[in-house]
């Protein structure tokens, strides 16, 4: 087991979660919960792969993935913002729909290879001892995009005027409405943005970080983990990024645990009884639950919480107005 490899891989795969989670943070901060990330990611992964394959250009694929996720999310917007339907159920149906479309249109893509977003080593920075190897050596361009996304998202939400409006719409939509900030328009906008990020996250799997189309196994529940990550991160992009990277590293660690015959000077049980590996496979999902429990009790202690209007449809004239 090589920890440099684990850290390096964790940063790479963590990027997928990070992108999806930050997108969802935007959406939820506006008061809309979109549980359909898994479906939008899978659709994005398929669209990215298929378009990259047919055009031979990974960047066009990336654009297609972003649009696919965004367009699908608009359905969620229509149903929850305009029709005021339950956000949980709508998010679920988005998952089914995204999965269904992706599987139908992705028929026959399995096993193909396609153009991908290239990897890249940053000059100078990669020479930093140890950290350079983990953070700046042979990473996908999207991983570097992830690095940039963290401060940008944070600054946007907390230090800009549109960010102020975003938070106002999710916390107290009627206040925003009385000041001429359009609640509906902003909610549609950030639902769309969240969808675009989910599509991008999907493509970052299929044509960038671990290229290929493996039908529904391409995402294998990472969309749901991203939703959990948002709660764990208390709607803060920085914490979401940390959580995403940590999660990526843990997954790689669990994978690597199966390799060596000896572990910490003892016989490695996972090496000698292959069936115990099932418990390792369980671990990420179990960890997600534990992270949720831990995250939400920490939130209670610090009196942080979900945006106050999260999940509530806004109807002008319902309360006070």
């Amino acid at each position, binding site marked *: 087991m090589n920890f440099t490899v684990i850290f390096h891989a964790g940063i790479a795969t963590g990027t997928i979660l990070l992108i999806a989670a930050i997108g969802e943070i935007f959406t939820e901060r506006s008061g809309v919960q979109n549980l359909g990330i898994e479906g939008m990611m899978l659709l994005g992964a398929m669209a990215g792969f298929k378009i990259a394959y047919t055009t031979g250009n990974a960047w066009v694929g990336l654009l297609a993935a972003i649009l696919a996720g965004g367009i699908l999310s608009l*359905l969620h917007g229509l149903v929850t913002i305009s*029709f005021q339907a339950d956000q949980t159920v709508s998010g679920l*149906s988005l998952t089914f*729909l995204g*999965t*269904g479309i992706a599987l139908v249109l992705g028929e026959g893509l399995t096993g193909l290879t396609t153009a991908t977003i290239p990897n890249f080593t940053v000059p100078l920075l990669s020479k930093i001892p140890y950290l350079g190897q983990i953070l700046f050596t042979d990473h996908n361009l999207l991983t570097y995009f992830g690095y940039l996304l963290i401060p940008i998202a944070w600054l946007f939400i907390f230090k800009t005027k549109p960010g102020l409006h975003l938070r106002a719409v999710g916390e107290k939509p009627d206040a925003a409405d009385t000041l001429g900030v359009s609640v509906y328009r902003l909610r549609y906008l950030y639902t769309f943005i969240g969808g675009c990020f989910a599509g991008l996250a999907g493509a970052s799997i299929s044509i960038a970080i671990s290229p290929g189309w493996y*039908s529904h196994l391409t995402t294998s529940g990472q969309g749901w983990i991203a939703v959990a990550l948002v709660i764990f991160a208390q709607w803060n992009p920085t914490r979401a990024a940390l959580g995403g990277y940590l999660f990526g590293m843990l997954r790689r660690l669990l994978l690597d645990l199966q390799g060596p015959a000896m572990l910490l000077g003892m016989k490695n049980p996972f090496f000698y009884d292959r*069936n*115990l590996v099932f418990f390792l496979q369980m671990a990420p999902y179990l960890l997600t639950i534990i992270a949720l429990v831990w995250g*939400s009790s920490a939130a209670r202690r610090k009196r942080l919480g979900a945006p106050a209007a999260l999940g509530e449809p806004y109807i002008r004239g319902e309360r006070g107005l």
Partner: protein
Amino acid sequence: MGLRLDVQKRTEDYPKWLPAATSVGAVLLAFVFSGLILLSVGADPIRIYSFFWTASFGSWGAVSDVIVKATPLLLIGLACAFAFKMKLWNIGAEGQFYMGAFFASMVILLPMVDLEATPKVLVLGLMMLMGMLGGALYGFIPGILRAKYNINEVITTLMLNYIAVFWNNYWIFGKYSDAGFQMTKMFPKIAWLPRLSDFAKQYKGFSGITLHLGVIFGLIAAVIVWLILYKSRWGYKITLIGDNPKAAKYAGLNITRNIVLVFMFSGALAGLAGMAEVSGVVHRLQERISTNYGFSGVIIAWLAKLNPFAVILVSVLFGALIVAGREIQPSGVSFLIQGIILFLVISSDVLLKYTIRVVRTDKNGEIVQAKSAAVEEAE
């Protein structure tokens, strides 16, 4: 002059037939939309749909297959409807189904009783109990997390689904594998639910008909769920908490306890479905006994507007979808149709809250007269 949609909030109650009509409309429209998508990928939707029909209702054997598939869907649909009534989003029926199958199988695999000496009724009874216990215990986890720590049950139940699959795999591959295959040894006949083909000697027509007793469990469960939800004190409490938890708390109800209980009851129904599947269909514990039943259950419950008797009808439709879908290419079609159905169903709920009419407008955009009083589909 122009036409536009005039949307008005309903001040009167909606007609009683409207919810059922929107569900039927949603299903029909879903087939239309899916057909369009199929056309766009070069498939022939008419051929696929007629194949759907013959594959699912073309013969008695096919019908029996459909009902066999509908049985777990019925129980799981009921499980979901029950939890949804209290606005608990139990998406984990899949996991509870696996745990029910696992617990029921343990009666045979351990074995818990002497399989030679115990009467069949007792063995099957014990399997049922264990199946429901497994599901209930697995429902307890998200229930208590939601009730005590207010943790989103959608995520916990989904994660528990994955965990249940790996848990079962461990026992199937690691402990009870039949010569290394992804299944345990076949259960002895004593652990099989009776099925119609067992009576082929007396009635020739039953030969090869795999319909088993589990469907009766499902029908009884539907009646019980209906009694609880619509006739009992507990059902009243569930309805009240589902509509307004604050009012329920103010009325002195213990919400924490009811969340846990409802989750466990829901889990028990899904667990029973797992038992019926291993004991009535596959006769062993094996991998992939569920083809996303948990998710279909969500859609079934919603399409049935949480009405237990409507769940029976809808689960037959979905059984057909799955039976036919097994042999259909591309493989995602039934998923696609299910997703579209659910979307249309929740969208059509807007018709219960608003009236939507097409109106004629003059050049100032003022409404001239109603063109049609009929309610139009909003999509």
